């Protein structure tokens, strides 16, 4: 992707001067960010820097205290916006998987397709099986979440989000709750998604993944974006002291 591409195309997600406070604690202090179609953006930063809150604002799991969020042509922070309709097109993967424990892997993927997209049972099932195959779990379709490992659960969760044909996928520390040996399977699925052209915003501590896969790395600290650029620029030649400090600790 080239810089000119970003300028000409309509951004998928656009945050304008986003503020978010929990009571008196201001977590986001004016964030501007544009994410374009097909772009993979990783958000890095120390814990408490507001990365997750930023991500959760994008699909309005957190209601911003100020600023605007645009999803494609819609300003989703306006009162007229149909939140559920917007969320259909924004997939999200959580740190704690959040699979529906009473449904099998397949049914987890089918539920929202049927309820929200009103797909037929057969169609939803077909989509579910295709996606399970894509995340390498076709033999686990009828397993209950409790019978799956964390890594398998997270892959089912990714498939569940993908089933809604999202225009952008949000990953909120998708591998942080996993045992180290299970991380790789999930990252590989994410990597494959990225290379397949999915627009993604990824909050992660996996520096290797951020460096290899991301088109752009965004470094946040204390509720603001401190530095952003290509992964090479941010990782290898950080300009900001806080970025240097953070990367110094990690590496």
């Amino acid at each position: 992707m080239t810089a000119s591409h970003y300028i000409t195309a309509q951004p998928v997600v656009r945050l304008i001067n986003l503020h978010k406070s929990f009571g008196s604690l201001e977590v986001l202090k004016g964030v501007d960010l544009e994410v374009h179609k097909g772009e993979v953006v990783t958000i890095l930063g120390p814990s408490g820097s507001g990365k997750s809150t930023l991500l959760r604002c994008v699909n309005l799991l957190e209601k911003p205290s100020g600023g605007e969020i645009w999803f494609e042509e819609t300003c989703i922070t306006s009162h007229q916006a149909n939140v559920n309709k917007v969320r259909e097109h924004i997939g999200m993967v959580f740190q704690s998987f959040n699979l529906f424990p009473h449904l099998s892997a397949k049914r987890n993927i089918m539920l929202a397709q049927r309820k929200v997209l009103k797909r037929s049972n057969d169609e939803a099932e077909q989509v579910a099986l295709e996606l399970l195959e894509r995340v390498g779990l076709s033999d686990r379709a009828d397993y209950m979440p409790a019978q799956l490992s964390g890594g398998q659960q997270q892959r089912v969760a990714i498939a569940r989000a993908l089933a809604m044909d999202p225009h952008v996928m949000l990953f909120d520390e998708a591998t942080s709750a996993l045992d180290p040996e299970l991380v790789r399977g999930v990252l590989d699925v994410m990597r494959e998604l990225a290379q397949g052209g999915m627009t993604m915003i990824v909050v992660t501590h996996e520096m290797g993944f951020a460096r290899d896969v991301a088109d752009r790395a965004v470094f946040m600290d204390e509720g603001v974006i401190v530095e952003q650029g290509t992964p090479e620029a941010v990782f290898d030649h950080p300009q900001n002291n806080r970025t240097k400090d953070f990367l110094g600790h990690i590496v």
Partner: protein
Amino acid sequence: MLLTGLKLLLQRLKKYSTVLPALRTFLAMVAVLSLVVTFVVPQPQAQGLTVEKTTAKPNQSGSSQIIGGIPTRITWEATVGNDEEVKEITLVFPEGTALGEGAANRVTVLEGSTRLEVPQTNTITSEQTNIVFDNPVGSGLLIRVEMSYVALPEETGEYTITGTYIDGTGTDITLDESPAISVISFTTVQKIQHWLDQQPWVESWNSVLFLKIFLNPQLIVSSVPTLFKGWLRSLGLVLFGFPLAIPIGLAVSFLRMAKFRVVRFFAAIYVNVIRGTPLFLQIYIAFFGLPFLGVKLDSYVLGVLVLAMNSSAYLAEIFRAGIQSIHKGQFEASASLGMNPMQTMFSVILPQTVRRVIPTATSEFILLYKDTSLLAAVGVMEQMMFAKSMVASTGNMTPYIVSACYYLLVTLPLTKIIAEFEKKLAAAEGHGEVLTSKKKKRRFFGDMGARETLEAAIGDSGSLVPGENSTANSTARGPANSTASGPKNKDLR
């Protein structure tokens, strides 16, 4: 008598016979025929000895009925006609009569107002009794024969005593048929009770005061079927009341979590007032208060309603706790998929809540079932009421004990089921435990091998499983990648 009766009948029928001449002819013929029969066929000479009455003594305590098959005392009375005397009487019992031990006749004569034993010799068999008077019994006397330890036939029916007598001239004359004795047959319970009455061990059992008052065998036998009806009614109360309480409780739990403070406030009042007052009081208010307002409901229906209302408040809190115990990630995941709150509630939250609340809701069911007994206080016919009336009529506590057993019949298995369910639930929610529990379950049912499940859980720990494949095919979004990873998965196990 017979003639006048027939004439009356004829007169009546004539009214109709004008309409139907054929019928008239027919009736005339019948009338003639009956007249012929009346005069031509010899009638028993009833004037010599007229049967006055035949009765049997009720032979079951607390009952005015005569039970077949168990001994009773039959009293038979007849008057000797004027200028007649009787030398010998033979009474024939209905077919199927049996004699108990010590069957005997007592023959007396009423002369004026004094009752005299009559010297006689009698023989008694199960078919008949034969009484030969030492001296012929004179005219105008009332002869009474009392036959004890006679067991009339077991089948329900009307039984008469027939027989013959020999008058002063030595003629053998057939007796008038006696008035009928109504006999009913024993119910199975009565038969068992009767049998128990005769058992020596029952007698010694009942000689212990405690056993007699609390565990009387005869009363156990009669309580079981009687209280069964009450048991069904109590079950009915709870089986109608509880399902009714579920939707009300669910609705109230939603109101308790409503967005608007006012709604929450009123829901809280409902729950706290009902949970904060005794059910007994609520029953009294409903049963004695509603009639003042002109509301007249069948007491059983009202009972169901009060129970449902009471239980709904408890269930509301159970449901609320259940819903609130669901991790907020479930709400977020549903929201992130574009599901609205309604869809989230009914497809994601409630199905999970149901499993969690089943143990507590079942406990609530048990409580409510036991509380149906409170309705006895306002006269709803349920188990407690049946037991109370039995105790009142027998003066024995045994029906209460039997009643306790009926309650336990429901509550004990349910308690067991709750315990099992809780175990299963604990296993299903914790990852580590689920394996051991599944392992046991699977083996127990001979289902798929436990190993497979175990491996399923540690599937990823081989780190390579789908990882390598997806890297290799990372550019392909299509099935090429997945088919590659599929077999590999299998190879690994």
